[in-house]
């Protein structure tokens, strides 16, 4: 692990030079790492404005994995983009590691990202990895820009590869020379290299086969002990159920239901959650037939 990271010129003065071991189990300010309150987001101009998020609230604490379930058009990816500073919310508030980032501009977001407070993993690892960089470069770059010495950064890259169970021999490869599953594990390692408070994972396992899916989910479960907060976004109920402590269900830009994973899966209250849970095939039990799905759909107001 790293020693005391040297703070780069960009690092905010309030960022403590926290030693990597042991990691903080509590956020620096004691509250949740991510607090989203009554978030609204729109696309398009005033004349043809389309509401994508209409008042969504959720919190993710340090060391907690919150699953965000939604289907196409639910607004889940927009929410991810808001949390990463790629979409500006039109109302509500977004507090990240104690800092209100709702009105942050590009420069402030860049500084935040450079500090590595929030990181991301997307469905397509090629979106979170630079195709021209070797694995070693992808993993060390975020540290080198902060002024971490090369040897230390390289050691950290090796440690992280080990965590995602990849051979250090892959350090010299480029993303194109890796399999899809290996690439996604590199993307997870890259996201962790700056010891972020929060990692947003948008469909991280949806393009993977079952073996690689389980590998990634297992790695994510192990991260809990590190105190990093995970926001796991997916349309795949099974994967979310596999790792999340709590689950929030988005439907048409609003929050349908939120609760512990066991409650949401076993005792869904909202008809939309029931529709999702009852639609998903399982090894045991019988999923809903078309009539039951139709009757649940009929209970939805939108």
């Amino acid at each position, binding site marked *: 692990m790293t020693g005391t990271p040297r703070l780069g010129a960009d690092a905010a003065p309030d960022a403590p030079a926290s030693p990597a071991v042991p990691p903080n189990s509590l956020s620096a300010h004691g509250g949740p790492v991510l607090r989203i309150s009554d978030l609204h987001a729109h696309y398009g101009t005033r004349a043809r404005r389309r509401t994508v998020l209409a008042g969504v609230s959720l919190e993710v604490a340090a060391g907690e994995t919150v699953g965000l379930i939604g*289907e196409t058009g639910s607004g889940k990816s927009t929410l991810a983009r808001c949390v990463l500073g790629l979409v500006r919310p039109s109302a509500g508030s977004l507090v990240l590691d104690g800092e209100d980032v709702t009105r942050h501009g590009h420069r402030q977001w860049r500084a935040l990202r450079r500090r590595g407070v929030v990181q991301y993993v997307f469905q397509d690892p090629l979106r979170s990895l630079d195709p021209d960089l070797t694995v070693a470069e992808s993993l060390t770059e975020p540290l080198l820009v902060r002024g971490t010495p090369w040897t230390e950064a390289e050691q950290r890259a090796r440690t992280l590869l080990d965590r995602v169970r990849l051979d250090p021999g892959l350090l010299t490869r480029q993303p194109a020379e890796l399999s899809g599953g290996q690439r996604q594990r590199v993307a997870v390692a890259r996201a962790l290299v700056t010891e972020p408070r929060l990692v947003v994972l948008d469909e991280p396992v949806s393009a993977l086969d079952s073996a690689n899916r389980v590998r990634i989910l297992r790695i994510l479960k192990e991260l809990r002990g590190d105190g990093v907060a995970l926001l796991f976004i997916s349309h795949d109920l099974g994967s979310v159920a596999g790792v999340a402590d709590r689950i929030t269900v988005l439907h048409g830009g609003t929050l349908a239901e939120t609760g512990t994973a066991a409650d949401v899966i076993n005792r869904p209250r909202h008809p939309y959650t029931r529709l999702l849970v009852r639609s*998903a095939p399982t090894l*045991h039990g019988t999923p809903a037939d078309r009539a039951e799905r139709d009757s649940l759909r009929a209970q939805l107001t939108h």
Partner: protein
Amino acid sequence: MTPSTGRTVTRGPGEARTAVPRSTGRRPAAPHTGPEPAVPDAGRPPGVPHAVPAAPSPLSLRDVRITDHATGRKLVHGVTFDLTPGRTVGIVGESGSGKTLTCRAALGILPAHFGISGGSIEIDGTDIGTLTPRAWTALRGSTVSAVFQDPASYLNPSIRVGRQIAEVVRVKQGLGRRAAHERVLGLLRAVHLRDPERVQGQYPHELSGGMLQRILIATAVAAGPRVLIADEATTALDVTVQAEVLDLLAELRRTTGLALVVVSHDLAVVARLCDEVLVMRDGEVVEQGPTRTVLHHPRHPYTRLLVDEHEQYGLDRFRTPEEDA
């Protein structure tokens, strides 16, 4: 399309039918994998020539082996299954296990320099080794058909979807323009698309993934095939849409006697649709048998691993024991 090149073993149809998977040179067969299919298979053609001729199996694989002739690597080491009308066989396994290659062999679309190096595949009683490219073209779509994971890449983005389906029925069934139009609307209704008249006039980009996959299924079944190979066909879909598509496949199977090969990494999808399941790893069938037996009482360590992982990292994680009954 590539005809299966480089076949080094050719067997007569009768011989192929009686052939059982050889166990020499392979890891010991898992308990479910026996010479006899674990499920009684009424439609299985008799191996003895003088028996009353039953309708041939729409698709029958006998110890199929596939080799990459460029590298000499053997990629599939013996896959055997028989379809009968309305029957569904599932193939599970991770990428590289050979499940997709097996399907491609059955469709006669193995990649260049890949070939069937052993065993045999029969479609409607005809050994595919004897098929000319022309005969393949006649079979594909009208006897064996397929849908894959990414529906958008199988449709021409610049042609309205209705015309693309119409082309299939005009070419395959010789329908005229008006009759083809009517058939298209019927097919779109059959896959439960609302407002077929409107949908048929739309371009692929105007439709959602679930709608496109239903259109692909409509296209795949347009010429009335006996076998549909669904390779990860519902993997990319939203869960409620997946449920619709799975229901649709089950319905087609019930109403038209369509036989299905369902390839999926999702054990639950296979559990939902299939009578029989093959578990593949590294080109080898490690376990094969009735779906409930294989998935609820797996015998091979690899199947057990898959089932455990599924139960631990999926919805089944929260199932209480009472619900298993």
